[in-house]
């Protein structure tokens, strides 16, 4: 199914994937009593964050994420992806994402999915800001010829 005017959009895949992400976050919340925030769990799993869930629990979630990607690839074959051909650009992007998510206490999952659905003012603010920042960055990057 496609949306008229947006031939590249995948609303069905997006919705199914989104519901799965929601179920996962709900399992974390109602099962383990924790927020499924990937940046926080990653910082905990790598030993960078001192506070948060027990280390082994964070590690389990992160390993599960990798296994989930692997399971998809085994069943459906490799996912369609298109990365920037510039490794320095990817390194700069990674640095900004790592530093920014720690400074802002969350990313698309923690603030975007878990916090916004909780109607947290902090998370709604953070999500609006990082989306706006992303939109401006893409516009500038494309103008500079850094898109791909």
């Amino acid at each position: 199914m496609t949306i008229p005017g947006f031939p590249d959009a995948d609303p069905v895949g997006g919705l199914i994937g989104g519901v799965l992400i929601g179920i996962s976050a709900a399992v974390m919340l109602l099962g383990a009593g924790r927020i499924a925030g990937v940046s926080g769990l990653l910082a905990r799993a790598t030993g960078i964050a001192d506070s948060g869930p027990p280390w082994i629990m964070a590690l389990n979630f992160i390993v599960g994420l990798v296994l989930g990607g692997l399971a998809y690839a085994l069943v459906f074959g490799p996912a369609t992806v298109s990365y920037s051909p510039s490794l320095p650009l990817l390194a700069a992007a990674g640095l900004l994402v790592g530093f920014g998510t720690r400074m802002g206490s969350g990313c698309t999952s923690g603030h975007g999915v878990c916090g916004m659905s909780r109607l947290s003012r902090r998370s709604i603010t953070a999500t609006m800001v990082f989306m706006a920042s992303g939109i401006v960055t893409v516009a500038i990057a494309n103008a500079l010829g850094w898109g791909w």
Partner: protein
Amino acid sequence: MKQILTLISGVIFGIGLTVSGMTDPARVRGFLDLFGAWDPTLAFVMGGALLVMAVAWVIQPRMVKPLVDTTFHLPGTRHIDGKLVGGAVLFGAGWGLGGLCPGPAIASLGTAPDIAAIGTFVLAMVGGMLLHRLATSKS
């Protein structure tokens, strides 16, 4: 039990990110490319996830404790400060530049379509987290 539950949660999350196409940086950038060929897919992903989680947040206060723990561990911070906003600005810039956020980047290690590209991003992301810790730790 707690360990199995978090592992399963991670697996479902990873499958969801891949099924939704969010592991493709070009698609994520397409959503942020409001002034170009806009791709609304990410809005459907966010919508689906928010719908389920909104129900979970209605159930949560009615539970005395989570299924496999003795208490809920939820963030209680309420104030909006410069750290929150500044961090979100930096994160958004990196997200727009590379088209990757933490979840899809980690799940992509499993699909491993281009290990040099995704490896570079993930290593730099962990480096950025470490840098933040070093910059904020009191010595």
